[in-house]
């Protein structure tokens, strides 16, 4: 899956305008509360059939960093 497709998927799951999901955007700025972020990460795994664990997301704060982790899992 291409990076722009992942970005589009993330925007869809977050239910926000894709233009807001830039590489540098902070994930916490894209969600109303922490519950939404957890829900989105769980849904992302279901959509892509991957499994993330807590260590995978250690230090991940931006869209770019999340996409890096997801891309590595898909590889």
């Amino acid at each position, binding site marked *: 899956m291409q990076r722009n497709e992942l970005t589009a998927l993330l925007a869809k799951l977050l239910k926000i305008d894709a233009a807001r999901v830039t590489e540098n955007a902070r994930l916490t700025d894209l969600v109303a509360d*922490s*519950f*939404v*972020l*957890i*829900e989105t*990460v*769980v*849904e992302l*795994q*279901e959509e892509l059939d991957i*499994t*993330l*664990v*807590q260590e*995978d*997301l*250690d230090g991940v704060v931006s869209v770019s960093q999340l996409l890096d982790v997801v891309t590595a899992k898909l590889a």
Partner: protein
Amino acid sequence: MNDNDRWIVSFYRNSEISGAQFFSRLARVLPAGPIQFDLTKHFADESQHAWYWTKALGDMNLDPIKMTFAYQDHYLEAAGMPTNIMEILALTMVFERRVISQYARHSRVRDIHPAVQHALNTIMEDEKWHIQWVGDALKQMEEKFGAERVKNTCERFRKADEEVYGRMIAEHGERIGHILDKQNYAF
């Protein structure tokens, strides 16, 4: 009933609402299967519990206090964000045990209002099932994640729970101290 009693029941109500909101989101995104089934029931229970506390306050002619203490945010700060359903259930297990322990202590307090006692007894019955289904689900997840990882995840969240609960006691001890003091227990 005094201000502290009103505060603690409002706190319970707020916690149940937060739990219901969280599980309702997960129930929507998880694939069909036993976990989705039980988690949906769990979320329905938490909503019902929020109603029991609202009703108990009403029976005491009290309005709920709007709470600013967001327990779940403190949890996430201490434990980090759970990222998969196993980690979410591990955190849930730790939290449910904390809840049932708190409610059991509260139910022993002398001269407790009948409305509060009724809500506590009813909710504690549900909580037993919550712990059972979550425990069963975590056991099943050992196959995918490994028993060691599941155990370590539960332990990590248990430590975080102790930290958060300790912080809550430090911040709101004057409001819940009477529940923690065994000298106030009727049995």
